[in-house]
């Protein structure tokens, strides 16, 4: 058993473990050997300024970008290079930055997509509308015409009905009102309490620190600090401002 940077491994290998990950776009390396673990049933917040490499790390973890070095381990198995659809099928689910929904499909049709992984449409709808009743009221509405918060609810519920073990959230708060962000993160906290391991990438730290178990600060493609949210709260300004 070993101690990793973002959280202690309590029981065997963590559900998601990134070891020495390097990644590049063309010839430009943007991740320079990142170590990050997401322990079972916990929320790990990855914070940093715009351009720090947070979303790139999520892409690597989700199988959307192949790392140039290092390893992505899921529950102890090296899955480096596995395509995103295979990772989604085994339970590593991603909600990408911005809108993670099909804008030209209705809410119901978006939820139907989740049945490709697990369950029937009736089961998926029941679970989604139970968690977010507002989606039930808008089931026949095009997803692109929903408000930003409702779109994130749809993306979140579509991910959750597949019963994932690991959830990767990239900039959940982007473009949303603070009250909506607060409600979404309350849901995220409930989800973590159900035993789902969550990696949250956020630019706006205050939104996520309230629910995170561990946090890490990323600067210029490297994780410079990890610790509890309380420990990191005071260091955030220097990380963001480069001071």
């Amino acid at each position: 058993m070993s101690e990793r940077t973002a959280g202690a491994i309590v029981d065997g290998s963590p559900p998601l473990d990134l070891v020495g990950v390097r990644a590049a776009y063309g010839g430009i390396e943007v991740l320079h050997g990142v170590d990050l673990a997401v322990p079972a049933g916990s929320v790990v917040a990855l914070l940093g300024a715009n351009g720090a490499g947070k979303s790139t790390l999520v892409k690597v973890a989700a199988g959307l970008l192949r790392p140039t070095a290092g390893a992505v381990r899921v529950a102890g198995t090296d899955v480096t290079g596995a395509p995103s659809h295979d990772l989604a099928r085994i339970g590593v689910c991603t909600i990408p930055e911005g809108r993670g929904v099909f804008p030209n499909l209705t809410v119901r049709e978006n939820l139907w997509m989740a049945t490709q992984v697990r369950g029937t449409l009736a089961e998926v709808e029941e679970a989604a509308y139970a968690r977010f009743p507002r989606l039930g009221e808008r089931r026949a509405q095009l997803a692109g015409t929903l408000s930003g918060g409702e779109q994130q609810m749809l993306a979140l519920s579509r991910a959750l009905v597949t019963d994932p073990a690991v959830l990767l959230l990239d900039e959940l708060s982007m473009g949303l009102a603070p009250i909506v962000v607060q409600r979404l993160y309350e849901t995220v906290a409930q989800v973590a309490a159900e035993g789902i391991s969550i990696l949250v990438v956020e630019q706006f730290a205050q939104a996520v620190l309230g629910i995170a178990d561990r946090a890490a600060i990323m600067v210029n493609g490297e994780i410079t600090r990890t610790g509890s949210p309380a420990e990191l709260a005071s260091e955030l300004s220097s990380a963001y401002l480069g001071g």
Partner: protein
Amino acid sequence: MNDRIERLRAEAAELKVGRQTASRDGLYQAAGGVAMGVGVVVAFAAYQMSLGKDDPRDISSLVILAVSMLALAVVGAAVFLRYSLARFLRFWLLRQLYEGQAQVDQLVSHLGNGRDMDSLRRPYVSESDTYERRNTAEEADTPAKGSGG
């Protein structure tokens, strides 16, 4: 730790990790291009060599080689085209998705501004344009100060 993690562990262990499709596509595309080039060059060379031969058996051998190489060039061209198109069509699909999203965004922004669907069929006039036009019209209707004296 819980059923979810156990399931993840079992399914991750069964996952077969191979090379990504995109890099394999690039390999096939390159192989197709090479086959196409080599086929054409060797076919031409074999045909040229056959012209300098007197023995019909040598000529037949070289012509057979030339035809085989032409076949290789055709197959290579097909493979090259197949994987070039796959890459192009992926970009095309992404572009379609992007444009679809942009259209929906435009629709939502119009509806958000309280416009009805009919207004979408007319050229878009911004609120600031309308305001400026109204002010210009009001100024034109108002007699200039001191003009009546």
